[in-house]
């Protein structure tokens, strides 16, 4: 596991040496505390559930947040808690307000109603102070194309008030973490798409934040690059950093996230771990059936299913005991019709998402 270096007394001395005149004679222990930031987060319980996570220090609590732009209501009375050290996935259809929620969390937007707190402190009230606790990797590449990798990272480090020596001490390990060490002198505009995404993440991590927010980190990446980024996210999370990410690719969310929030119509429609959500929606098995006639009314007579979703060409039945239903279906369909496709499975997060978002619309 790659660790950020502990800042030693010597490094601090070197870092503050140009400013000795300004700072005067001071106790280095204060600086050590300042540079090394807060103590590392405590271990969290493996199967911690969302509801009790608020008790943990360093958690983010979104409390009845509403946000609108003009007449357009984006978020409506959202409440959720993101536990410390977890990877939180936020999913929702395009324009559902995922990015707005992320920007509210970092204090970029002010909510119309409600509050957000980090580690018990109001993000709006302590906005400037808490900004060092957040890193934000956006959908777009938030860096300068005409600066090279190192210069970009250094610049954003300076904006976080870090000294040159401190940045230098972090630079190598950070660039190694995101796999850009070899390309440190390459102009950002000359980087590949995947490298740009990694640079963006590096820029978000230079100040060693407690929380890394990633808005669509795998968007527009090919499967290999996606894997790389996901692996990097996991590595970063191993540093006890809370990660909040959004994605349209629900299988990724399912694989990487500890907690998932499904946002629909400006509200959190569902919140829980992927397993919890799937469990909730997978008491049933899914039976996907497609026949040649595409007529299913007669076929479903006498078949007991918890839920039936009719699609244009096929139907999906949610049943508890597929072994009892399947022979009946095959027998009925086989007599008058021809079975084109028959599949039995447990619902994925993607299907849970589709189900929830469709129902929310209704």
């Amino acid at each position, binding site marked *: 596991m790659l660790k950020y270096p502990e800042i030693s007394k010597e490094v601090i001395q070197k870092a503050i040496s140009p*400013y000795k005149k300004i*700072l005067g004679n001071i106790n280095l222990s204060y600086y050590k505390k300042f540079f090394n930031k807060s103590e590392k987060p405590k271990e969290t319980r493996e199967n911690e559930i969302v509801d009790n996570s608020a008790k943990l220090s360093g958690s983010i609590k979104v409390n009845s947040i509403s946000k609108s732009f003009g007449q357009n209501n984006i978020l409506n009375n959202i409440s959720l808690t993101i536990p410390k050290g977890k990877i939180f996935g936020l999913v929702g259809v395009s324009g559902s307000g995922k990015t707005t929620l992320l920007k509210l969390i970092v204090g970029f937007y002010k909510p119309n109603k409600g509050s957000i707190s980090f580690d018990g402190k109001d993000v709006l009230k302590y906005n400037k102070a808490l900004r060092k606790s957040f890193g934000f990797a956006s959908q777009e590449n938030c860096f300068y194309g005409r600066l090279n990798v190192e210069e970009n990272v250094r610049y954003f480090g300076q904006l976080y008030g870090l000294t040159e020596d401190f940045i230098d001490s972090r630079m190598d390990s950070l660039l190694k973490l995101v796999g850009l060490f070899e390309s440190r002198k390459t102009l950002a505009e000359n980087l590949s798409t995947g490298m740009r995404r990694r640079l963006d993440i590096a820029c978000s991590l230079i100040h060693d934040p407690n929380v890394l927010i990633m808005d669509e980190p795998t968007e527009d990446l090919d499967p290999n690059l996606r894997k790389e980024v996901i692996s990097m996210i996991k590595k970063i999370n191993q540093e006890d950093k809370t990660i909040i990410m959004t994605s349209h690719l629900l299988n990724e969310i399912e694989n990487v996230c500890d907690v998932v929030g499904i946002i629909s119509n400006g509200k959190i429609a569902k919140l829980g771990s992927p397993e919890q959500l799937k469990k909730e929606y997978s008491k049933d098995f899914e039976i996907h059936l497609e026949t040649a006639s595409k007529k299913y009314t007669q076929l479903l007579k006498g078949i007991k299913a918890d839920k039936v979703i009719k699609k244009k060409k096929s139907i999906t039945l949610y049943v508890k005991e597929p072994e009892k239903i399947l022979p009946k279906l095959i027998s009925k369909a086989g007599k008058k019709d021809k079975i084109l496709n028959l599949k039995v499975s447990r619902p994925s997060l993607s299907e849970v998402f589709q189900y929830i978002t469709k129902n929310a619309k209704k």
Partner: protein
Amino acid sequence: MQKNNKKLVKKLRALSIVTAFLGLIKKNLKLILRSKSSATIFFLGPLIIVFLVSAAFNTSSLFNIKIGAYSDSYSQLSESLLTDLGQKQFVIEKIETKEKCLDDLKNNLIHVCAIIPQNLEIGSEENIDFFVDNSKINLVWIIIDAVSKRVSTKSTELSQQLASNLLSTLEKTETQLSPKIQTASTIASTNKNLETKFSQISTSLNSLDLSFTVGKIGVDKISSKLDDIIKDNKFNKSLFGEVDKAILSSIDVAEDYETTMKEATTIKENILSSLSDANLLLSQNAQGAKDIETAITSISSDISNAKSTSAEQIAAPIKLSINPISTKTTNINFLFPTLVVLIIMFIGLLLSSILVVREKLSSAYFRNFITPTHDLVFILGDYATNLIILSLQLVIIFGVGLFFFKENLISVLLKTSVLIFLLSTLFISLGMLLGYLLRSEETVVLAAFSLGSLFLFLSGTILPLETLPESVKQIADFNPFVLGESVLKKIMLFNLSFTELGFTLYILLSYILVSFVLVYFARKLSKRSI
């Protein structure tokens, strides 16, 4: 301990602000310099401008002003006028027809079309018509002024010549009249003598008694006595017939004499009357002669007492001398302050607005907002970057400026630098405001140019402010470009102190303050476009 920690936190905050501020400037400069075209324009642009302007305006003359002339028939006077204009700074071109002359003016082949009357002579009633193209607003007044000056000079020369002729005639008249005063005096005196003589004659004639009657000689008494004697002596009357005859004859003679005397008296009276008339005429003549003498004396005196006896004084009774308030001799001296303010204005507006809008449109803009760095640090960082670039450009310009007017510039360098700093700050902040308010580079460039052009049009650089309507002029008086230009001119040309420029400086400072406040809020607003 807690107190110390608070102090430390403050110091660390200041330290992080300085780090962020310097980082911002470094980043901005790198971004600009890594674009080769931008870097070239930023550093070579002002050099090229200043070299061209210096070369072009390092004179106070007008060059290549072409005057097209047309006349049905050129007289000696018109030829002389054209030669005179040609010898000065104008190029004279004789054109075949009046229409062509006017067409050439419209087509910008000539700058002035002069229509000279046929056989122009002194005192000619017809005018020389000069036609100018009023659409060339910036040039027309200079041309009119230059041509009128030359024509006026020629006209004055002719007036002097005419006045000189007139003066010599007067002088000659005076010379000829002076001796005639004596003549008139003599005539008057002679007449007076004659008058006296005539008076004496009249007196003599008056004293001459020409009264005579027959009875006066007593013939009646003689005849009566004779009759008595005859009667007494009883003489025969016939004896005295002869005597009687003689008496009678004497009476006849006496009567004739009486008649003659009467006639003589009449003649005498006629003579006296004539003498009286003559005397009167002589008296009138004497008075006339006296009047002539007085008149000639007066004319002569007036001529000799005339104040202007020189033709130059008569042709130009008021001597006009336009003296420059500044000792500078070439146009570049007067243009340099304007040029500097112009460069500050356009570069300040364009550079800062483009820098801000590029930053705003950059995907990295969002990340800047989520860092703990305060908005003011970003604003000051951008401002400082612009100020550094603008200062470098101005150093180049002033470096070249030193070549032309070293002494003048060095003496006012400190004051000029302070003012340039204020002006740069103002125009940079205005540019930044545009950058934060507008959402695309094209719009920002257009807005910066428009604002700069507006300031330029509402200044005296293109059109004199005095030609603008009063209401517009009142607004234009508060135009930052006008204020900046006037203050810089006052400092660079007349070396005025800041105390003397107080009011204008306060206005500039208020503009800067308002502008920065607006920039701060515009930056806050710009978050909405992310």
